[in-house]
């Protein structure tokens, strides 16, 4: 491995890896994945602390050739999952039209419906919106990845074409949710906007170490997770009787599904081209745990904001520890990890680890459920300090 430890940073501890909602029913899983909540507090307070290890360029340089050679394949197999702009939905399609006569009526109706939607749901929706709005961080993450980065900002490479178009599609998600929340009248927009500013300012080290192997496995996982999350908020909105909101969440979820398909295909191809390298990356990725992009969110008052938001998402069944394990299991199956052959002994160990992981996590999760205690209610500045149960 070609490790270039950034000379400016160093630290024995790892950047927090948080994937599972930590509290209430996930005591054990929480402690495994995140005694990180302690780490988070420390890293947030000292964001330019010299004590963090950030690993860079972990992929051996000769492997960049693999990605160059995949250009045509990407054009024919991945870009097809993008939608032509003319055929794309836009946020305006799902919101009252200010240029129309009935605009104020529509807004009133929207606000009436929103009144029937509970605070805990709004906490989760806001968390999703803030995460989507931190898009600059995600485009950055992709563009610092070896082998697939956009070298000029308008590179004609298939990889770069994908990344820009993906970013453009994702951009609509934050816009749509932002406008909806703004119109809803149920939230404190300034606090939310502040949180977004903090989050983009904080960035995120997803620990993909500039490796496209790690990066594409990570994004596959993420897209599936966001599909689940937005799908859940759509389902809940329907339950609360807000069909328009359900449509909003649903249309976003459908984008995520297309993206998931694209990234999953890329990793499938990597398993074909370089099974050993890819399985080792999968192991590394899972050992580090899948960190959620909104990890460093902060609203100026809650030091454990992400933890609290995640706990509510867990309790509402929007994205849970069970989902995490389901997603892992899905990919192990989808990429046929059990059937890989021609692996080195390290590769076989990685294969064993990855194939056995879901079962271990399920056991932890069951245990955590047994031990689940009733969680406290806490205020969220996003909803004007109204309280919600974690």
């Amino acid at each position: 491995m070609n490790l270039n430890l950034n000379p400016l940073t160093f630290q024995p501890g790892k950047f927090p890896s948080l994937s599972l909602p930590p509290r209430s029913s996930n005591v054990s899983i929480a402690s495994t994945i995140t005694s990180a909540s302690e780490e988070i507090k420390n890293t947030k307070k000292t964001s330019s602390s010299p004590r963090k290890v950030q690993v860079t360029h972990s992929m051996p340089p000769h492997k960049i050739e693999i990605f160059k050679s995949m250009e045509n394949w990407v054009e024919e197999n991945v870009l097809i999952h993008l939608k032509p702009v003319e055929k794309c939905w836009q946020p305006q399609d799902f919101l009252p039209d200010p240029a129309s006569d009935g605009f104020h009526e529509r807004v009133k109706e929207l606000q009436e419906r929103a009144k029937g939607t509970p605070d805990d749901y709004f906490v989760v929706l806001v968390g999703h919106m803030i995460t989507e709005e931190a898009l600059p961080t995600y485009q950055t993450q992709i563009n610092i990845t070896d082998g697939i980065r956009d070298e000029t900002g308008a590179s004609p490479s298939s990889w770069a074409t994908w990344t820009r178009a993906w970013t453009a599609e994702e951009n609509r998600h934050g816009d749509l949710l932002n406008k909806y929340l703004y119109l809803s009248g149920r939230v404190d927009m300034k606090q939310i906007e502040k949180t977004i500013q903090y989050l983009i300012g904080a960035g995120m080290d997803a620990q993909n170490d500039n490796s496209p192997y790690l990066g594409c496995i990570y994004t596959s996982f993420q897209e599936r997770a966001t599909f689940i999350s937005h799908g859940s908020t759509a389902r809940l909105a329907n339950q609360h009787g807000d069909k328009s909101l359900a449509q909003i969440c649903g249309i976003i979820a459908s984008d995520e599904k297309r993206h998931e398909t694209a990234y999953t295909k890329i990793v499938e191809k990597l398993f074909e081209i370089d099974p050993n390298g890819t399985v080792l990356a999968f192991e590394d990725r899972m050992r580090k745990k899948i960190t959620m992009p909104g990890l460093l969110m902060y609203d100026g008052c809650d030091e454990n904001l992400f933890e609290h938001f995640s706990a509510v998402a867990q309790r509402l069944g929007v994205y849970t520890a069970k989902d995490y394990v389901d997603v892992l299991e899905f990919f192990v199956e989808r990429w046929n990890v059990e059937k890989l052959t021609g692996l080195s002994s390290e590769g076989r160990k990685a294969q064993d680890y990855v194939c056995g992981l879901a079962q271990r996590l399920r056991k932890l999760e069951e245990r955590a459920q047994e031990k689940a205690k009733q969680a406290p209610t806490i205020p969220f500045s996003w909803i004007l300090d109204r309280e919600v149960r974690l």
Partner: protein
Amino acid sequence: MAAVSATSVTFGSSLKLLKSSQITGKASSLKMVTVGWTKSGFPSLRTSRFRVSCSAKPETVQKVCEIVKKQLALPAESELTPESKFAALGADSLDTVEIVMSLEEEFGISVEEESSQNITTVQEAADLIEKLVQKNSEA
């Protein structure tokens, strides 16, 4: 609390004493000290890194070692000492949680999340187990 520093000095020497008793397996002196400590309700014991090292029975330490070896798939002959750190033996955070879970099952105890985060060595695990087992029997 001027007494604290004085007591710590005493601790130091008692600790040494007890450590040697541990080696010779003089269970009785071990017991005495355990009882003494809980009676005094010495507050710092709860949170401090103060090794209640002397209170864990050798059998407990042995059992912990077995469980750790199994979890980390270490060869049976591998030498584990009470001071062995899980991380140094190759345990990641998932392994540690699973070790704690196995210990809960083995000893019929329930470990709080906050406590489990403080378990980094065989000795710390054994100590916590003894403490919880005792609490169970007192309950």
